[in-house]
């Protein structure tokens, strides 16, 4: 994925660049609106991450200039958590927005979502190691053994499996599975993951559902030699 980050706060720009390069993205960084606009217009990016408050040209102006020429997906970053900013951002053609302080995981999730948006067809079958999921029949197997899941448990499993390798925060999981769009300050997701793990992972190898402390959960088949945090939590 080829990304442009337009962000004047050097520390933010630096960690975003580092994190996204490590996620396998090609990342350009502009520290002001003028450079940002130039890069955005000259190159073709998959997604542009755009801060609203910028020296030179502000994010909204840049966005309008960009939209006059092309439809590159844009995620706005805004420090002001006010409705006007959001409405303005989306009205001017931003595809998504994040309010600072935002978590890196959330940015990743939004980037993946924007990337997926262009994709034609969702798969109907998923396979991770010996876990098989039929998204149409809503059934799951570990090897040859059928796993009995409630509707919400299946939804949770599907959300994690569709984004295999992607760390999902508890907030993101609550939103994707239960449509709860807020920091819920509850341990519901932890409990749900624990119950899902009991059905999907506990009796089987390899372990697939891992807890990343302080960040969230990820479903992936890991190297057997690596430490399996999932069983520890």
């Amino acid at each position: 994925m080829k990304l442009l980050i337009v962000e004047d706060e050097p520390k933010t720009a630096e960690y975003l660049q580092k994190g996204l390069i490590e996620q396998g993205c090609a990342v350009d960084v502009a520290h002001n609106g003028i450079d940002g606009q130039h890069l955005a217009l000259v190159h073709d990016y998959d997604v542009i991450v755009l801060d609203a408050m910028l020296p030179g040209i502000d994010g909204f102006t840049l966005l309008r200039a960009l939209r006059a020429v092309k439809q590159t997906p844009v995620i706005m970053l805004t420090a002001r958590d006010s409705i006007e900013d959001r409405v303005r951002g989306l009205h001017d053609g931003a595809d998504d927005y994040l309010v600072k302080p935002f978590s890196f995981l959330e940015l990743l999730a939004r980037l993946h979502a924007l990337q997926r948006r262009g994709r034609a067809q969702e798969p109907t079958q998923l396979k991770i190691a010996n876990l098989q999921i039929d998204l149409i029949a809503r059934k799951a197997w570990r090897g040859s053994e059928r796993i009995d899941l409630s509707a919400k448990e299946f939804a949770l499993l599907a959300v994690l499996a569709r984004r295999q390798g992607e760390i999902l925060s508890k907030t993101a999981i609550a939103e994707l599975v239960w449509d709860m769009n807020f920091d819920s300050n509850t341990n519901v997701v932890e409990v749900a993951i624990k119950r899902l793990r009991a059905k999907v992972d506990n009796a089987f190898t390899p372990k697939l559902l891992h807890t990343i402390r302080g960040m969230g959960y990820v479903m992936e088949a890991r190297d057997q030699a690596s430490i399996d945090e999932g069983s520890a939590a």
Partner: protein
Amino acid sequence: MRRSITTRLVAMFALGALITFSLIGAALYGVLERELTRHQDDDLNTNLQNMRYSIERFGDLDHWPRMRTKMDTISPSDGSVRFWVLSDDPRFQYGKGLDEMERVNQGEAGHGMLTMPISGHTYRTLSMRIGAFADRPPVRLIVGVDTAPFEHTLRAFLVALTLLTLGAVALVMVLGWWIARIGLGPLQRLSAEARALRPKTLSQRLQVEHLPVELEDLTVAFNGALGRLEDAYQQLEGFNADVAHELRTPLANMIGGTQVALSRPRTAAEFEETLQSNLEELERLRSIVNDMLFLARADQGEAATGLTAADVAHEIEMTIEFFEPLLDETGTTVAIEGELRAQATMNIALFRRALSNLLQNAIEHSGAGARLVVTITQRAGAIWIAVANPGATIAAPHLPRLFDRFYRVDSSRHDPGAVHGHGLGLAIVKAVASMHGGATLATSDNGVTTIAFSLATL
């Protein structure tokens, strides 16, 4: 322009005095004028009758010079009373300026006014016809009284009256100012008292006992406002301390943990552990900051946007579904009761957020296997959603304060539930309610605690 009460009162007193004195003056002037006229008329009448008697009885020319002498004698030298006799026979005429008299006298009997064209004197006159007698033809006797002294008196009276009125108005203004000062004294004392109020002395109230009744309402209202201000101020002070405290704990954990990690060589795994711990604290900080921003926006009176008509019971079910793993785990059941068909206009995300905070709260404060009840009640102008849970009864004084930020029923105890919440859950419920034009209510008795919020319906 700002108007002073004293100025207004003085102006009103002055206007009142001016009107009163003017009316009295006008009446007095009228009385005086009428009395003076009557006096003149008496004078005229006496003189006329006197002369008429003499003229009637004498008709020959021999006696006429005596009549003239008599009239000369009784005419005062200052000309204040004058006599004229008009006749077709010039020998029986009498009086100065007879030519003029001929011209101006209308020839009628009775009262009249006469202005001498040359001297300019004005006379009030009384005339009568006296029939012929002996040689004398009918004559016309006219008596005139000079109106100058009369007018002079009236003028002097008017001047005196005007000056007195103006003087009286001025006096009333001075007295009025003095009265207003004294009358407004309690207000000034009240101002002085109010000026002395400081944030440090917020618990002080204005004295109501010694105030006039008119000021009592104002003072009571002002004291009420002071009371609310004091509450808000104390809440704010406590709130700042609470925020600092809430932020201090994660900050201290991070600083300490990082210092320990850096104090000697560590393995990558140990550093990872430190970073993970820091991240947990940072997430806590982020969550507090976000919730505080949300509450601040609600405090500024921001109304909920993105309103849609929704089925209340359905939204409750969706939220309960989210809690299912936790409910299963604790063996808790939730029943929905009341008006299941109720519809409300709401921001669905905010509604779910408020309800999930209530459910979380209810689950935390009731034991395993509890039965929670969510009740929907439709009342005039509002739909109430109440979550009831069995649990320790909360003393009445705490109930309204449950919705305050960081409020803890037991202030000495740090809530172990703070792993998941940070004391803002019910404050957010209140904020969501107010963003929907609703309110909150907490009740607790017989081991059941019910916390409710409402959405305004249009």
